[in-house]
Structure formats: C-alpha cells, structure tokens
C-alpha cells in the first residue's frame, strides 16, 4: 500500500479518473477552447468567419467525442459558465439604456422595421427548412435565431424547442449576417449608416453589431439598439405568438 503511494508519479489513467470527476476538466476545456478561438480570430484580423465561439464549439465538441465524454457529463462541469448567461443578459441593460437616445424621432420607422425584419426572419427560415424536408425539431431551432443568443435560448426554453439548436443557429446566423450584410445592403441601395446598422442588428444580433461598429460608429450604435430591441420585444412577442398560433 505504502509502496504504491510513494512509487512516484501517478499513472496517466489515475490522473484522468481524478480530473474527469471534477468540474475542472470541463471548465479548462471550455475556456481553453475559447482562448484558442480568440487567438485564431486575432490572427485572422478579426474576420467574421474565424468566429471564436464557433471555433470553441467545434473544438469542445470534437474533444468530448474523441475522449468519449458524454455530453451531460461535460455540461455538469461547464454549467458554471452556462449559469452566467442570465447574469450577462441582465447586463445588456447598460448598452440598451445608452442607446435609447438614438430612438428619438425615429421610433416609428425603427419599430416597424424591427417587426417586419423579425417576422421575415422566422417565416423565411421555418418556411424554407420545412419546404426542404426538415422536421419540427429542426425548424423549432430557427424561431429565435435572429435574437441575440442568450435571450434566444431563454425564448427557446419557454416555447419548448431546443435551446442548443437555437444557440447554434443563432451563432451561424450572426456569422452569415456579418459576412453578407454589406452585399445585401448595397443591393437594396440602403445608404444611410443608421439604416444599414439597424438592419444588421435586427438580422444578425451581436456578431452583426460588432461588425457594424468596425465599419462605422453610427451604424454600430444603431445595430446595438436593434439587437437590444429585438431581444426584449422578441422575448415578449415570440412566446405570445407561439401560444396564439399553438406551435
């Protein structure tokens, strides 16, 4: 017995068993993967396609598949990060409050555009996916995808669709929006920065917003406002709509 304990370095298997029993492994994995994602993003000159969140998701998913760690077990450890999602959502109050001034004198066109954009987002995604044969489990994930991911996941829970798919579709939407927005906006001849920014924010939430800020500060401010308004109104109207339409 004593001989075993003093026999020097414990073998890899022992270390493994010890580590995987604590939340530490999942936390290291999550934060480490995200850090690698951030490094890659910086190296790629902040190109939207090198999105750190997407990189982190792929790295963690690949790793837990490779080491045969069941997802619920991973989540048990990573839930400490997950918990902060709600807290971070509340902190969105600060940018929303600061953006309220931008609403002045433009509240009617902004609200109308938000409603039109929000409905378009849901109807087009769900409609196209259904047309191409996707089932309800998948189309459910599209409903809140243009809302900022932390709020979108909350909405998903309330309307009984998968928060996971919602988060993944929301991140993908943000990336696509950040990449494609410029071309779409040029195509429809949108010229005012505030209009361009707002449209990106409605469609592509946080990732679109940071893209808008990197192009023009006025566009960024309006994108941020759009993201906040879409988050709050979406959280009220989407569950209400779901209840009325009964899906």
């Amino acid at each position, binding site marked *: 017995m004593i001989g075993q304990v003093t026999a020097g370095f414990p073998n890899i298997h022992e270390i493994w068993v010890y580590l995987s029993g604590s939340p530490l492994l999942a936390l290291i994995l999550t934060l480490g993967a995200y850090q690698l994602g951030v490094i890659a993003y910086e190296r790629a000159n902040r190109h939207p396609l090198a999105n750190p969140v997407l990189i982190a*998701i792929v790295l963690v998913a690949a790793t837990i598949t490779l080491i045969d760690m069941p997802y619920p077990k991973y989540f048990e450890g990573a839930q400490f990060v997950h918990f902060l999602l709600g807290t971070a959502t509340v902190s969105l109050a*600060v940018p929303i409050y600061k953006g309220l001034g931008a609403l002045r004198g433009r509240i009617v066109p902004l609200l109308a555009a938000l409603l039109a954009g929000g409905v378009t987002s849901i109807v087009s995604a769900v409609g196209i996916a259904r047309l191409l044969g996707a089932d309800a489990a998948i189309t459910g994930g599209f409903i809140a995808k243009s809302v900022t*991911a932390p709020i979108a996941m909350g909405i998903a829970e309330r309307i009984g669709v998968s928060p996971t798919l919602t988060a993944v579709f929301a991140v993908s939407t943000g990336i*696509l929006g950040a990449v494609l927005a410029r071309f779409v906006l040029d195509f429809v001849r949108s010229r005012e920065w505030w209009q361009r920014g707002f*449209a990106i924010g409605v469609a592509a939430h*946080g990732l679109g917003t940071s893209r808008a800020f990197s192009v023009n500060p006025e566009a960024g401010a309006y994108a941020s406002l759009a993201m906040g308004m879409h988050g709050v109104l979406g959280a009220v109207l989407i*569950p209400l709509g779901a209840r009325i339409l009964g899906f």
Partner: protein
Amino acid sequence: MISALVEILLFQGLGELATHFFLPFIPGPVIGLVLLVGFLAFRKGVNASLDELATAFSRHFGLLFVPAAVGVVMFWPHLKTHAIAIVAALVASVVLTIAVTALVLKGLSRGSGK
C-alpha cells in the same frame, strides 16, 4: 465591480421571481434587464462600476453559450441528414431579413420628409 455584480444579480433575482409568479412566458433575465433599464432611467445614468462590468460581459458573451451549444453533438446525425435544408434556410433567411428591414426603414423615413 463587486457592487455592480450585486446590483445585476439582484435584478436577475427580481426577474426570476417575476417570471415564476406573474409572467411565466417571458425569460427571467429579460425581465431583469427591462427592470434594470427602468432603474437606470430613473437614476439617470450608469455608474463606472456597472459600466465596467457590462463591458466585460459583452466582450466575452460568446464564451457563455459554448456549453449549451456543444450539445449540438447530440443532434449531429439529425443535422447531417437535413444539412441542405438548414444551410439554405439560414442563408436565405438572413439575406431576406436584412433586405426587408433596410427597405422598410428606407421607405418609412423617406415618407417622413427627411
């Protein structure tokens, strides 16, 4: 920073209580957010500590939804089967959403005699 964290956690708590007892269809953190916006409007300003915390959160928001999104591994076979439908829906929907939003804004602000 700690005082701001206490403030935010309190509002999150209020939001959770409100959703539990009165508004079960709205996510608790969103109610907390709205209440905090109201409080900031009442106080007429954001203090430095809260501003600092909100900036820190917003800079690394993405990290916080990694654990939930990794659950995509459980959907993998299902997603592969419907890959074309998913990609088509995502791309077309984001293009249409941007276009419709921008066109409505353009139309309405022209009407108001800008």
